[in-house]
Each structure stands twice: as C-alpha cells, then as structure tokens.
C-alpha cells in the first residue's frame, strides 16, 4: 500500500488538545492524559510488589494508563498497517545517518535512554503527556517548569550526542 500523507501538525495539535479536554470531562475519565506511570505499575505487577508504598500510590493512575497505552499500541498498529508505515526495524533512518548501522550501538543507547527517560519521569512525577501536554493545558507551574528544564536538557544532549548532524 502506498504511504499515506502525514496529518498536518496544526490538526494533530488541535485533535490532541480536544482529546485531552474530552478525557478530563467528569463523565469520561476525570483526569488528564498521562503515560509514564504505566512503567512502574507494570514492573511492580511483574515483580509482585503490590504492597510496596509506591505501588499503592500509583495503583489507580497506573491501571488507567496501562489501558490507555494498550489502546495507543493498538492505534499505532492499526494505523501504521492501514497507511503502510508498519515495518519491523531496529535502527531509525535518521539515527543511521549520524550514528551508522551498528545494531549493538543502537540497542545500547536505546536501553540507556529508556532507563533515564522513565527514571526521570517518575522523579519529576510526569512526562510529555502528563506534565507538558496536560500540565501545560492547566497552566500548572510544576509542569511549565518541567517543560523548560526538559527542553534545555534535551537540546544540550542533542548537541553533544549527535553533534552537527548532516
């Protein structure tokens, strides 16, 4: 199948905004979109740590985010199959242009990156969804501060790690 045209950024932003306001409705979920709590929640279920202090705190949001992300996974799968974007692939094309085709290198950095990403999200209490999108929607001081810190850290890391990308 021929690849579909990407959804324009403005439409994507508006749709995501409408979705978040819909999720916030007291008759829908009465909470904003979020994703990173799923990770300790599922890890805690696997490691059988249900009685740990943190697991008790995140039981409700963790459960909600697990089902939300199951939906997101299905959405990504169905949509990528329907529009011809689905592909089993380890090394992203933009990565290979800068870092080459070495599989071990991509695996190593994806592991380190994934670890820091979730550790950081849990220490800060949110991620791009829960802090930046949802906190930004509510003009939350914690989330706006998080957004500024993340952008600075993200761009400095990008400069140091990828250098002057071609």
């Amino acid at each position, binding site marked *: 199948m021929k690849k579909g045209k*990407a959804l324009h*950024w403005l439409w994507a*932003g508006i749709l*995501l*905004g409408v979705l978040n*306001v819909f999720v*916030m409705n007291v008759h829908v979920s009465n909470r904003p*979109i979020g994703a990173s709590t799923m990770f*300790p929640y*599922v*890890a805690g279920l*696997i490691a059988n740590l249900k009685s740990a202090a943190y697991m008790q705190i995140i039981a409700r949001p963790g459960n909600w985010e697990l089902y939300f992300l*199951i939906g*997101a996974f*299905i*959405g*990504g799968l169905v*949509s990528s199959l329907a529009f011809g*974007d689905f592909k*089993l*692939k380890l090394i*992203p094309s*933009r*990565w290979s242009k800068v870092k080459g085709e070495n599989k071990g290198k991509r695996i190593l950095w994806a*592991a380190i*990156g*994934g*670890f*820091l*990403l*979730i*550790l*950081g*999200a*849990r*220490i*800060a*209490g*949110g*991620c*791009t*969804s829960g802090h*930046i*999108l*949802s906190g930004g*929607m509510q*003009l*939350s001081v*914690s989330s706006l*501060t998080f957004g500024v*810190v*993340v*952008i*600075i850290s*993200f*761009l*400095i*890391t990008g400069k140091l*790690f990828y250098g002057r*990308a071609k």
Partner: protein
Amino acid sequence: MIKVIILGFLFGIILQRSRVNTFDKIGGFAMLKDFTVPKILLASIATSAILLLIEMQFGAANLHVKPFILGGIIVGGILFGIGMAILGYCPGTLIVSIGEGRLDAVIGTIFGLIAGWIYILIFPGIKSLLGPNLGKINLYSGNAVVTFLIVIVYSALLLYLAFFLDKKQVIK
C-alpha cells in the same frame, strides 16, 4: 476499561498519523532538524487550555494540577531530557512506535520497565530528597475575567511560537 482503551486508541492514531511518534521527528528535534514535536505540543496546549476553561465554566471538569516539588522537577526533568534525546521517544510515543514495529522502542520500553521497578524500590528512600513541595499551583487568577485573559494571551503566545517554528523549518 474499554472506554479507556478507545481513548488510547484515538491518541495512538493521532500520534501515528502525524508521525510525531517517530525517532525521525523526536531525534530530529534533538538535532534541530525537525520542529514537528514542539509545534504539535504547542498547538495542543494552546487549544486545550482554552477549551478546558470553557469546560470548567459548565462544571464539567476539575483541575488536576501536579504538585510543584522543585528538586524532583529539576532532577527528573534533566534525566528525562537526556533520555528522550538519546532514545528518540518519550513514554507515550514509545508505545505507539512499538505498534509501528520499531524494535528500538521495544528495547527502550524494557529498560523503562526496569527503571520503573528500581523506582518502586528506591521510592521510600528518595521521597524526602525531592522537596520542597510548593503546592499544586497554576497561573489562574482568583478573578474569572483575569483568568480568561491570562489563558487567551498564553494560548496566543504558544500558537505564535508554533507558527514561528514552522516558518523557520520551511526556510531551512
């Protein structure tokens, strides 16, 4: 449960169709080659900030502001930024990208789960180190009209920034 899966399904489709879930967009932003990520985030926040205020006027939504725990926000934000730049995905887009068949997103998720497991174990020890907790504060005013004006200006500034980044990308 089915309801939440459907909400997530819509989230996944929007991210997938805009391609914002991909390494090429997120890693591309870290390389300053692609501004799709900030443009979509800014447009989403601008739209939802105004709609949420209207929704709350009808009593159909409540605020869910996260507490401003300064140390946690700064330390966590720095680690999150480093991880997102190197991995090229954030927690939500990671899962959408697995749906697209991206194996590096599977690796990132496995190690994210390990980080989550470690966080459960260290939480009792570090909980007190993250403070001070400055409360669940946001930029709303006590006066409804002033709050409305603040949100309008806020959303206009974010949208302006999004279009500014869009222009910059076209020139490049």
